[in-house]
């Protein structure tokens, strides 16, 4: 069970999310509607994970995202899952840059419709994982074509799935290959991208993302 602080200005969605999270046995310690309230609620409840919208009152700009980044600067171990209504590399990058991307997620809001995947992503973020929306990953991959041209189609597939924060086992399952094949692919990806081999999953994802961002 996770203790969650939720920030979402649309009452409809806020209620829906509370219902959804409680349906999966989590506890919503506070559900708020503004970035200011979010900061206060986090200070009060010290949650396991924060879920926040990007666009919120008073400015209806990117208050939620800024609050999330600020929260992580103040409490480096606080996991945050940001829900956005649009694919935005600039936003995702800013968030991933905070505290090396440990325990952070950036998902399109519409992913909450895939309830099990959403709850699973939330759990991974709470455990310190990195979750990036497949759409954003796709954009990142398309954006930096050059270094990736060296990769085979299958290696690119593996990389895309890794960048979503999946484990080797999960990638293997998705591609219906063995886990050994996946780690072989990944090793060759790291070699082709001139990245040194490390063993922590997020480290690898981060290394890839950092490389892609350059």
């Amino acid at each position, binding site marked *: 069970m996770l203790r969650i602080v939720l920030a979402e200005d*649309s009452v*409809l*969605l806020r209620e*829906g*999310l509370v*219902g*959804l999270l409680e*349906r999966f046995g989590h506890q919503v310690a506070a559900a708020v509607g503004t970035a200011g309230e979010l900061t206060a609620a986090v200070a009060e409840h010290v949650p396991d994970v924060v879920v926040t919208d990007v*666009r919120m009152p008073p400015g*209806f*700009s*990117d208050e939620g995202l800024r609050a999330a980044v600020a929260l992580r600067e103040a409490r480096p171990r606080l996991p945050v899952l940001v829900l956005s*209504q*649009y*694919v*935005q*590399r*600039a*936003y995702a990058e800013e968030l991933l840059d905070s505290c090396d991307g440990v325990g952070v997620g950036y998902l*399109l*809001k*519409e992913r*909450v*419709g*895939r*309830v*099990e995947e959403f709850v699973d992503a939330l759990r991974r973020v709470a455990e310190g994982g990195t979750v990036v929306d497949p759409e954003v990953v796709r*954009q*990142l991959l*398309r*954006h930096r*074509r*050059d270094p990736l041209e060296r990769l085979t189609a299958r290696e690119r597939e593996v990389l895309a799935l890794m960048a979503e924060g999946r484990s080797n086992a999960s990638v293997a399952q998705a591609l219906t290959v063995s886990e050994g094949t996946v780690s072989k692919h990944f090793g060759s990806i790291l070699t082709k991208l001139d990245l040194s081999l490390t063993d922590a999953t997020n480290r690898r994802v981060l290394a890839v993302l950092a490389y892609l961002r350059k």
Partner: protein
Amino acid sequence: MSSLTLRQALVRRRYLLGAWPWRAALYLLSSVPAGLVLLVSVVLLAATGAALTPVLVGLPLLLTLVLIGIPVAAVERRRLRLIDPVRLGDPHRAPERPGLAVWLRTRLREPATWRELGYAVLFAGVLWPLEALLAGGVLAVCGALSATPVVMAAVTGGGEVRVLKLYLADSYPQAFAVALLGVALLPLSAYPLGWAAVGRAALTRVLLPSEPGGLDARIQELGRSRMRLVDAFEAERRRIERDLHDGAQQRLVALSMTLGLARLESPAEPLGGLLARAHDEAGAALVEIRELIRGIHPRVLTDRGLAAAVEDVADRSAVPVDVDLPLPRLPQPVESAVYFAVCEALANVARHSGASRARVTGRADGGRLTVEVRDDGNGGAATSGGTGLQGVADRLSVLDGSLLLSSPPGGPTVLRLDVPRVPAHPAE
């Protein structure tokens, strides 16, 4: 006839037969009473105004004196139409609000008012006496010559008459010859008179401020109103984006969430299958509405500015695009116009150019922002054919910007846009 000016009429053969000589004479002669009245008014206003200033009553009189050029110029513009159908425009702006004080302030701030005052002074002091001398002189000479026999008969009883104090006529044949000369001189003098009127009209046109000031003001107002239109359009786009975002999109997410939860209950077929389909449809609708909203007005443009928004478009482009835009935040209309211009350019690159790579570069140096979109495609792009680039050019022109397209057959295509960093006609 009405489209003819005196100047054009003067070089025609039928000049003497028409009304033109009379018009010219009327133009010159009407100056005399007008100038006389003006001179008297100026002197009276100046004298009484100066005399009464110590008791403050004189101040409005002096103010009237300052403004006297306005009615004078109005009369002069009308008089000018006697011999020239081309209207001389009123250079004065309409005051922003009704009321004497606003009117006064507007007039006193306009350079046109002061030029008209200068003209009035010149008119009162120099122009009308000259005209009186000229037109009066010609008429007096012709009249005196023609009247010689009458004078001879009536005044000296058939004796002698000294015509114009120059020539002594002492017989009726001589007197009639002189009279004949006078009548013959009249049509001949119509020419110098006509040219004098033309000269006088030209002087009026030069001295009286006319269209340029007024036209400038009108062009500026036009620019502002175009800017307001674009701003209104832009505001409407943002409103639609916000409404879709806060309304339809949120509801669809909630719907998708509810359907997702319903599917967890894993009901039996066919309901389970229907739920799955409904869920997929909701997902597809969400993707569509997300793209729609982004096309209407991308959020990142408002939040992060032009460079981030262009990078975002570049990310989505089918053709790889390098972006190099080290730009500060710029005024919103500038960012919007340039953003949509770059979008259009990149869409064209993807659709028509056959390019394998494109590059967007831009600098904001000095007062201007220059952005260039270059691709390595086949070239042959044109601004006239497609409405897309034409629309972009129109939109940039509202900001006093310009669009330059170089696209020789075989490529490369370079689209360069250049706008002032600050819009020239801020919508008020």
